[in-house]
């Protein structure tokens, strides 16, 4: 087995940088090290994919909508405020 190059990220370090990576907030040098690691590590590639899938799933939660009752209450408040001037 060959030893790792000195500036290679470990998997343990990579998982802590993943948010900065997907947010495009890594400095260029760290981004390069991140991508070099991904190129040779299928597990971290899977990890990054899971983070992206997680973000996608979070964005697909159903919307909350207002009850007709609450809406009517607000419309009344809006109207009565108008009538007060």
């Amino acid at each position, binding site marked *: *087995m060959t*030893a*790792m190059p000195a500036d290679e990220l*470990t*998997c*343990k*370090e990579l*998982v*802590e940088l*993943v*948010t*900065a990576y997907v*947010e495009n*907030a890594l400095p260029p040098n760290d981004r390069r090290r991140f991508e070099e690691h991904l190129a040779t*590590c299928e*597990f*971290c590639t*899977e*990890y990054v*994919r*899971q*983070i992206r*899938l*997680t*973000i*996608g*799933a*979070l*964005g*697909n*939660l*159903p*919307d*909350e*909508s*207002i009850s007709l009752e*609450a*809406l009517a*209450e*607000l*419309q009344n*408040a*809006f*109207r009565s*405020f*108008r009538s007060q001037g």
Partner: protein
Amino acid sequence: MLDDSGENESADADLVAALQRRDESVFTTVVRRYHGPLLRLALAHHPSRAVAEEIVQEAWLAVVQGIDRFERRSSFKTWLFRILVNRARTRAEREGRTVPFSSLVSEVESEDGPAVPADRFVPTDHPEWAQWAGHWMVAPKSWGESPERALIARETRALIEAAIAALPAGQRQVITLRDVEGWPSEEVCNVLQISETNQRVLLHRARSRVRAALERYFDAESR
């Protein structure tokens, strides 16, 4: 006319002007558009749905009463959500649940543990694999070729909601606005009044935890 993302200043000015002259149809549209995100953000502050709904109603009433004095130093949307956040924080303070103002910052500064438990990586003192220290020992298993369908199933959505509800308050607020509502980071920082760096720390922890919850689910499914 209702492009009130804050990017289009003249649309935002039109919206505010319509509310100031008490145009009820515009008001109704705005309520319908923002009620869901407001409720989610209120729930991120207060776990009780009944209380969260009350906070949202209070915020809307504050909008009705305050719109004439709105000076457009921010977009309407930022103003609206800040009112909500202030109401929610005041309420939490009154109930003695959080330290005022500094609570998000103190949450960032408190220890939260790693994104992935340390025992899933090769330890530096491993008898045989020490040269691989920091590499996966218990690697993430694949979620399959196309997990997108499983991820939108009702069961999985409930699991994601539960994972969000279990997060500390700051993480819950940030992930709700960033990922559930899809806001850009700048808007989130504006509304929650936190720095970009602190926002990213909270987002990182929150996403890591939700991913871990999904991993437990997929692992159990494949067993």
